[in-house]
C-alpha cells in the first residue's frame, strides 16, 4: 500500500506517494521541470538529463525522473546553475544531429524545439557536427529520420513495454549511438513490427513520422498511449 510522505520542492511542502519519482511528484504539484525522455506510463531511464534537480545533502545533481521521493527530501528545481545545465544539454542535442526545423515534418509540434524556446536557447554555442546519418523510408506507413533523433528511447520503451514487440534498440556508444530496428534491419523488413504506430506517436521530435505528411504537418498524441499503459499497469 503506497503511503503518503512529504517533501519540500522549491521551499513548498508537498505530499507525495512513496514510490513516486521526484518528477511525478513535482508535476502533480503543478511545478515545471523540463523533460524529454520521460513519458507517462513508460519506465524511466534518465537518458536526456534535462530534469536534473538539486537535492539538499546530495553532492551531485540528480535526474528527477529516476529519483524516488523520500520523506523529508528538500529539492530545488530552478536556479541559475540548473538552467545553465539544461540549456547546455539542449544545445548539445542540437549540435549532435542535423536539426533543420524550418523543413522538418514536426516543425511547431516538436518537444525539443518547444523546450529550446521555453528555456531561452536562441543559439548553439558548440560547433555543429553535421553527422551523416540514415533515413529509413522502407516501412509502408512510417518514416524514420536519424537526423532528428535525440536517443530518448521513448520509441524503444513504448514498443517493448506497451506493444510488446520490442522492434527498436540502440547500438554503439556515445555520439556513435544509433537507433536500430531489430538486429539492424530496415524497418520495412521488420519481423516484429505490428505497424501500430505507437513509437511514432511517442517520439518527441521529427525522427519518427507517418508518411504523407509535409513540413509542419506531423502532430503527435502520446497521451492515449500513456493512458493505455497506465490501465495495463506497465509503469505508474
Amino acid at each position, binding site marked *: 500500500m503506497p503511503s503518503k510522505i512529504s517533501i519540500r520542492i522549491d521551499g513548498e511542502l508537498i505530499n507525495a506517494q512513496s514510490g513516486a519519482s521526484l518528477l511525478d511528484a513535482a508535476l502533480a504539484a503543478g511545478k515545471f521541470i523540463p523533460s524529454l525522455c520521460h513519458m507517462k506510463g513508460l519506465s524511466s531511464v534518465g537518458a536526456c538529463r534535462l530534469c536534473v534537480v538539486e537535492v539538499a545533502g546530495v553532492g551531485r545533481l540528480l535526474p528527477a525522473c529516476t529519483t524516488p521521493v523520500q520523506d523529508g527530501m528538500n529539492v530545488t528545481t530552478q536556479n541559475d546553475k540548473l538552467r545553465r545545465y539544461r540549456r547546455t544539454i539542449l544545445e548539445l542535442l542540437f549540435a549532435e544531429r542535423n536539426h533543420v526545423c524550418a*523543413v522538418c515534418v514536426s516543425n511547431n509540434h516538436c518537444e525539443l524545439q518547444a523546450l529550446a524556446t521555453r528555456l531561452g536557447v536562441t543559439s548553439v554555442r558548440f560547433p555543429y557536427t553535421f553527422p551523416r546519418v540514415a533515413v529509413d523510408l522502407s516501412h509502408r506507413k512510417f518514416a524514420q529520420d536519424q537526423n532528428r533523433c535525440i536517443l530518448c528511447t521513448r520509441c524503444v520503451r513504448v514498443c517493448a513495454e506497451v506493444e510488446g514487440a520490442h522492434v527498436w534498440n540502440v547500438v554503439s556508444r556515445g555520439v556513435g549511438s544509433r537507433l536500430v530496428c531489430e538486429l539492424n534491419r530496415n524497418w520495412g523488413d521488420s519481423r516484429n513490427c505490428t505497424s501500430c504506430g505507437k513509437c511514432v506517436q511517442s517520439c518527441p521530435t521529427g525522427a519518427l513520422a507517418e508518411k504523407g505528411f509535409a513540413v509542419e504537418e506531423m502532430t503527435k498524441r502520446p497521451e492515449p498511449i500513456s493512458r493505455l499503459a497506465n490501465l495495463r499497469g506497465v509503469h505508474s
Partner: protein
Amino acid sequence: MSKAKVATVWLDGCSGCHMSLLDIDEVLIDVVQKADIVYGPLVDAQEFPEMVDVTLVEGAVSSQDDLRLIQKIRSRSKLLVSLGDCAVTSNVPSMRNNIPTKVLLERAYVQGADVNHRPPTDGVPTLLRHAVPVHEVVKVDIHVPGCPPKADAIAFVVTELLSGRKPELAGKVKFG
C-alpha cells in the same frame, strides 16, 4: 544627436529574413527616423562603410566570399546581429554539409545537367567545406532565430537596439 548607422547583409540565405524585415511595416518609419541604412540589399552602396552601429546578418557563411565579407563586417560593426536560422544555425544551407563539395557540385552540375557538364568556375566563389552559422567564424552579439524571424521580433530587436538597450529574446523567438 546624429543618426545611427544600420547595415544589413545577405549571405547564404533566401532573402526571407529581409522580407520579414520589410514586414515590420510602420516601425520602418521610426527606424529610418532614428537611423540611416548604409549598406545591404535594400540600398545602393558598393563598399561596406568604415564604421556601422548595428549590422543585421541574414544567411549562413558558405563560401570564401561570405567568410571574407563577414570578417570585414565584424571589424567595422559595433553590434552584429544574426538574423534568422541560416545565420544562427546554418539551417537549410547546411543540409549539404555531409556531402563533400566536389561530389555535391558534380551531382548538381554534371549528373543533374542537360548541357555544359561541368561545375562553374568563373565569377563564383569557392564553397567552404561546411556552411556554418555566423558565430562559428566571428563574434555575434545577438541571435534572432526563426525561418524567417517574425516581423514582431525584428521590430522589437531593432527598436531596442536603437534605444540603446540589449533586447532580451528568451521565450520570444523560436527555431524554424
